[in-house]
């Protein structure tokens, strides 16, 4: 069920209305779980069994790990739990990819036979709910939290529908307490009803409106421009490729952060707080700063569950660079079973490692007062984003020869302008939307918590703003809901 379809609108309104009507919190939890499972089942049919299996698997292992006192046994149980989760993810996501690579190798060595593909359907959200489950068992193993008392509560954490399909990746120790808070009567053990209050409602609707605006007004209208450049990039001039890379950066940001805003808004309306996923990433002044601002829930997950266990920056410098590279390599692979995502991840690993190396090797330059000035900050942003958008080419273009061509044109400019001018002239609409995005993004530089500020306006002005956003979205909607890019992962 896509967020930007009538199906979801009807589903969400129905769920929220019924949610409010249920007085008993316990039943609210059961209802929320049923709604989340229905949401998943709507698109995935029988594959809901995988979600249920993951939930039962990790709930069971979480309890056993907590009860076990023997450290060695604890570790073994954790490994079992992780193996189960990652095997499921690996099987459904990477089997056909592995077979394709094996067959390619076979063709290279002129082997006559090839293994037929399994043509497995990728269960929606498997990358995300697998990572949710991992945070649960690992947090219990580390003693950071006790296991969930109720299976229903844990199941809601795994399957919570606003973030089920494309994140943000929740942490068990941050979400589960929200399900147990606000006990009305400690003696009776009854929990107060989760109320949809006006503040949360206004804030949630504002967030969702902004999300739909980013996705449907900006991302979907910039997409045709990107498709034109990268459908067959061979033959395009450098400036066209650069324009395409910037447009794709704008598209994926609006698409993904738009989705996150909708997820945040839906969760807020239902009375839950989920982490933000973006913090103006295109104002990042270094690769590590970029990853503190882009897909924050994933980067922090990779830091806490991969980078730090690998040693982080506590071992030698070389080991630190290697750790960064490995983490980003796996991060790229997590995005999809395709070499272009791996290359994208590796590029970012390289950026992080190089940046770290430069900071270590040239501390005087790294700490130079120039980089604290306005010009220095602008310079840092431009250099960082130059490399970020270069990596976006790898993310967007699957075909290796097209990727190499595009990256080469991006790095080594040919200064041809005729084709680019013609291209801009042919795609004026997409250019205008891209310019609107750039202007709005630049204006947002010093603006913090804009959605919260708008939601605190007087009801009349708030309504006018939201209606204006809705009219803009509707006026430039082409009638066909486009997929969210991160739904593929």
């Amino acid at each position, binding site marked *: 069920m896509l967020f930007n379809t*009538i*199906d979801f609108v009807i589903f969400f309104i129905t769920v929220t209305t019924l949610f409010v009507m249920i007085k008993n919190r316990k039943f609210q939890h059961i209802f929320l779980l049923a709604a989340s499972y229905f949401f998943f089942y709507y*698109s995935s*049919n029988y594959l809901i069994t995988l979600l249920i299996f993951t939930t039962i698997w990790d709930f069971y292992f979480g309890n056993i790990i907590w009860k076990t006192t023997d450290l060695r046994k604890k570790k073994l149980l954790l490994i079992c739990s992780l193996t189960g989760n990652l095997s499921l993810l690996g099987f459904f996501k990477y089997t056909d990819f592995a077979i394709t690579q094996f067959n390619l190798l076979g063709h290279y060595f002129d082997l006559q036979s090839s293994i037929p593909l399994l043509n497995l*359907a990728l269960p929606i959200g498997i990358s995300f709910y697998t990572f949710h489950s991992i945070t649960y068992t690992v947090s219990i193993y580390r003693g950071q939290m006790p296991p969930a008392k109720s299976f229903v509560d844990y199941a809601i954490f795994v399957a919570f529908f606003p973030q089920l399909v494309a994140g943000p990746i929740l942490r068990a120790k941050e979400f589960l307490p929200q399900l147990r808070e606000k006990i009305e009567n400690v003696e009776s053990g009854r929990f107060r009803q989760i109320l949809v209050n006006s503040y949360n409602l206004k804030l949630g609707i504002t967030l969702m409106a902004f999300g739909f605006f980013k996705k449907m007004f900006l991302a979907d*209208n910039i997409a045709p421009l990107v498709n034109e450049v990268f459908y067959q990039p061979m033959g395009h001039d450098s400036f066209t490729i650069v324009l395409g890379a910037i447009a794709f950066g704008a598209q994926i940001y609006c698409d993904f952060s738009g989705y996150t805003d909708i997820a945040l808004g839906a969760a807020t309306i239902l009375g839950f707080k989920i982490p933000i996923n973006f913090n103006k990433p295109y104002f990042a002044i270094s690769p590590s700063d970029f990853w503190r601002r882009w897909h924050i829930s994933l980067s922090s997950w990779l830091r806490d569950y991969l980078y730090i266990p690998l040693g982080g920056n506590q071992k030698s410098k070389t080991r630190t660079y290697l750790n960064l590279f490995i983490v980003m390599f796996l991060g790229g692979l997590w995005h999809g079973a395709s070499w272009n995502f791996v290359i994208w991840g590796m590029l970012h690993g390289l950026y992080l490692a190089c940046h770290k190396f430069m900071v270590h090797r040239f501390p005087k330059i790294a700490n130079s007062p120039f980089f604290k000035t306005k010009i220095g900050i602008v310079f840092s942003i431009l250099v960082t984003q130059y490399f970020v958008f270069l990596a976006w080419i790898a993310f967007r273009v699957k075909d290796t020869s097209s990727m190499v061509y595009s990256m080469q044109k991006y790095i080594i400019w040919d*200064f041809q302008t*005729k084709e680019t001018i013609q291209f801009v002239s042919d795609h004026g609409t997409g250019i205008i939307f891209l310019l609107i995005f750039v202007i709005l993004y630049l204006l947002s530089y010093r603006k913090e918590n804009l959605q919260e500020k708008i939601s605190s306006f007087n009801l009349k002005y708030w309504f006018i703003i939201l209606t204006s956003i809705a009219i803009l979205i509707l006026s430039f909607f*082409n*009638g066909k809901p486009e997929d969210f890019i991160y739904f593929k992962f």
Partner: protein
Amino acid sequence: MSLSIAFALVFSLYVLDQYMTTNSIDSFVDTKGKIVLTKNFLSSPNNADEKLIFIIGSSQVQSLNTTFIHNYLLEHSLNYTVYNFGQPADTPTERLKSIDTLIAKKPDVVVYGFSYRDFMSSSPSELQNAKIVKYLPDPSSAFKKISVTLNIPITAFDFLENPAKVTFDAIKFFSSISKRIFLPTSKSATNETNLWLLNQLNPGGYGVGKSVTNDTTFWPFPNANYRIPQRDTIILTDDELKNYYNRNAVADNRINSFDNNDNVAALEEIISKLQSHHIKLILFITPESRYFLNTLGDSDKKEFNLIIQNISSQYELEIYSLNDKYADLRVWKDLDHVAINDNVTIYNKDMSNHIIQELES
């Protein structure tokens, strides 16, 4: 210091060299020019003396050379002006939106080429959904049936089918009015483009009915020399095609069945409209390479064949398939597009022969 100067000098020479090697202005019609020509043609009055053949379909029909076909028909005493209205990523659903405009030009013959892709789900979520076999009851199809039965208002208004188009048309309308009010003496950009185009074309100017020449390589319109991207002219070797194939996984269940396929319904409506206006319709399956056919699953092949059989029997139309003949030929620029190359005339010849056969029957 001298090193910096040397570097600056080399860099400047490099920039200058790149700038100097720009393409010379030529007389090719580019994409924008083609759009202008198309609009002009579709809005110009019909010429009762002229017999028209329109070729429609996706990018797979775009490599058909209208000049070649016109000349070939002329050799068989059939004088038709041929236009190629192929559009990349076209599907019957998309084509249905503009078919009325084409019908208004009163073509004598419409040649419609389609293939497997025309009936496939295209978006990643639809493709994923297609892979998920619905073993359990499916609420999404139940919801669709309910919304169709109850005729939920949101789908009933034309505006909501494509609000963006209405908005852009409104912007263009107000823009043209304001230009007329505030800049009454200046020529519009469209007029300027037209004049430029006319100057680039034959001295007699753009005109329907002018005879076409034999030595032009490719004209989607008569008297319009269209720029062909170099990548479209390259004929791939078998190894190169194999590389393409290896990067595309075999997929199945992308074609919904005949009675549950929006594109089939759209195609049927197109056929009904053309037949009700007594326009001769020639349907054909565009050629595909062997490697493309190998990426198709059995279910998709079966569904496609059922669609073809149903359309053929329901509307009493013979649908020509070029797949068997073309699958192993060396004519491909990629898995499913014939190259636009002077050495590849087979596609044009075969289609010309089919048209002749239909016209003489």
